[in-house]
């Protein structure tokens, strides 16, 4: 994998920000888009745009072919048994909400349990809080270990025969923890519960095989994996999806409509009410082509090396607090003593370096870490060791700049 060639394919990276070559270290928030994706979306709107699954004209056929082709590509990407189990959504949040609304709210009763944990993103907490409130089910948290990981022992202690749903993130967007979702799913299944995985930080960075993981639902977003915003995926096992009601009613998802009753299309379309996200799905297909061309294993390998290098340089930096386990995905969440992460991010931005500052949509985790906010540098296939060096230089300058204050 030649990272310099890869960088050439991202037009946005070829610019100066505040007079310095851009160093983009916020891919966990959203990734940048390669020219192949931009051109695929562009070509669709220039040449093939039409609504799908209706009408008989040529453009309609082309659009439908590309949209359903994208679904097949996603199926292959995550090794789902059938394209009927691949539902296009607006993103991970919508995908998780779909399950919380259509599955949890209709099937849970008082006494049932939903099991999550404190490292989850708000989008994998709040839908379950609300479903628990609506049904009288109990929300339970698997306690985190000191280093921000889940031990299988705690997993086994928390999941019981009352547990109906276990929801876990594949990779923590703050700690970088990679969770043993396959093993957790096994425990969930032993107790008759279903397992949902928030794959927003997983699918972009590593090979995902939903059959091997044997999870019941896997949700992810296109925009964190080189695709446009507004497209995401919910994979779900057919036997579950078949027994779930749609959450949005309207065009596209119906079979027959009578005055007082209607019937739904088969999977996956019964969950895709309204004109679907056609351009987004086509962009996602192009992103998958791009990522597979580079190779998911090569991407993971590259990111591992980068994470190691970043950790090595950052742990050696004086006054640095780093959060999360040793073994981590390609992101480092940190605080520099005496400098608020906002101020730090502003100084880095003046140097052309983009990092995230704030609570990262994980307020319970911030509380667990006993901080109000943190800074985060996150990496993707287009980042280099030079980017890490620039970050370290920027941090030195930040320290120098605020050094007089304290």
């Amino acid at each position: 994998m030649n990272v310099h060639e890869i960088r050439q394919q991202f037009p946005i990276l070829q610019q100066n920000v505040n007079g310095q070559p851009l160093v983009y270290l916020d891919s966990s928030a959203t990734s940048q888009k390669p020219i192949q994706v931009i051109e695929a979306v562009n070509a669709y709107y220039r040449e093939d745009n039409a609504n799908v699954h209706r009408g008989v004209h040529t453009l309609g056929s082309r659009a439908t072919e590309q949209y359903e082709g994208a679904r097949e590509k996603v199926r292959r990407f995550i090794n789902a048994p059938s394209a009927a189990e691949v539902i296009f959504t607006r993103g991970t949040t919508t995908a998780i909400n779909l399950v919380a609304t259509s599955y949890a709210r209709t099937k849970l009763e008082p006494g049932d349990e939903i099991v999550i944990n404190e490292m989850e993103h708000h989008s994998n907490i709040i839908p379950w809080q609300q479903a628990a409130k609506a049904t009288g089910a109990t929300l339970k948290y698997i306690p985190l270990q000191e280093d921000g990981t889940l031990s299988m022992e705690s997993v086994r202690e928390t999941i019981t025969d009352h547990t109906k749903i276990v929801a876990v993130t594949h990779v923590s967007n703050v700690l970088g923890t990679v969770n043993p979702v396959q093993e957790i799913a096994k425990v969930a299944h032993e107790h008759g519960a279903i397992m949902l995985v928030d794959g927003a930080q997983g699918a972009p960075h590593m090979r995902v095989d939903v059959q091997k993981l044997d999870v019941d639902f896997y949700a992810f977003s296109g925009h964190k994996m080189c695709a446009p915003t507004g497209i995401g995926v919910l994979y779900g096992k057919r036997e579950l999806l078949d027994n779930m009601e749609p959450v949005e009613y309207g065009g596209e998802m119906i079979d027959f409509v009578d005055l007082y009753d209607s019937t739904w299309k088969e999977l996956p379309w019964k969950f895709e009410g309204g004109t679907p996200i056609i351009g987004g799905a086509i962009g996602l297909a192009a992103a998958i082509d791009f990522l597979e061309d580079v190779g998911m294993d090569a991407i993971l390998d590259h990111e591992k090396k980068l994470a190691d290098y970043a950790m090595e340089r950052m742990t050696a930096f004086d006054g640095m607090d780093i959060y999360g386990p040793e073994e981590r995905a390609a992101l480092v969440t940190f605080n520099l003593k005496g400098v608020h992460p906002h101020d730090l991010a502003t100084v880095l931005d003046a140097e052309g370096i983009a990092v995230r500052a704030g609570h990262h949509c994980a307020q319970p985790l911030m509380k667990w870490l006993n901080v109000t906010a943190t800074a985060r540098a996150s990496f993707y296939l287009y980042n280099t060791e030079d980017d890490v060096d620039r970050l370290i230089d920027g941090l030195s300058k930040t320290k120098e700049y605020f050094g007089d204050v304290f």
Partner: protein
Amino acid sequence: MSFNNLDTLYRQVILDHYKNPRNRGQVEGDALTVDMNNPTCGDRIQLQLQVEDGLIQDAKFNGEGCSISISSASMMTQAIKGKTVEQALRMSELFSDMMLGKEIDMDAMSLEDIEALQGVSKFPARIKCATLGWKAMEKGVHDDSAAK
């Protein structure tokens, strides 16, 4: 941008208020208490106001935040103390205008230090930090008048 431009944001007087916030703490006796946070970043502030006959007798704050939010809250408490609620609300309006980059009459602000925050208008991502304390003050007096 260079570090010289950063200096337009982080003026010395701001860093001084950040390091030594004025009116940090709790008001003694009865006070209006407002908790306000900036949900996008996690900054939070608790503002306490002692208002008697429409006059702000005392103002104190506690909280956690960046240099901009803390220094701005510190300056605000200094500026509104001894002022009428109306005057304080007017100052808040002026402060919002300043954040939008508008020229304002600094004499009406009653505290010269506040002028140092003018540079924040050039950093759109940081405007919410600077207005947090002022928004808390507005909420406090509105809730108070609604309760009466």
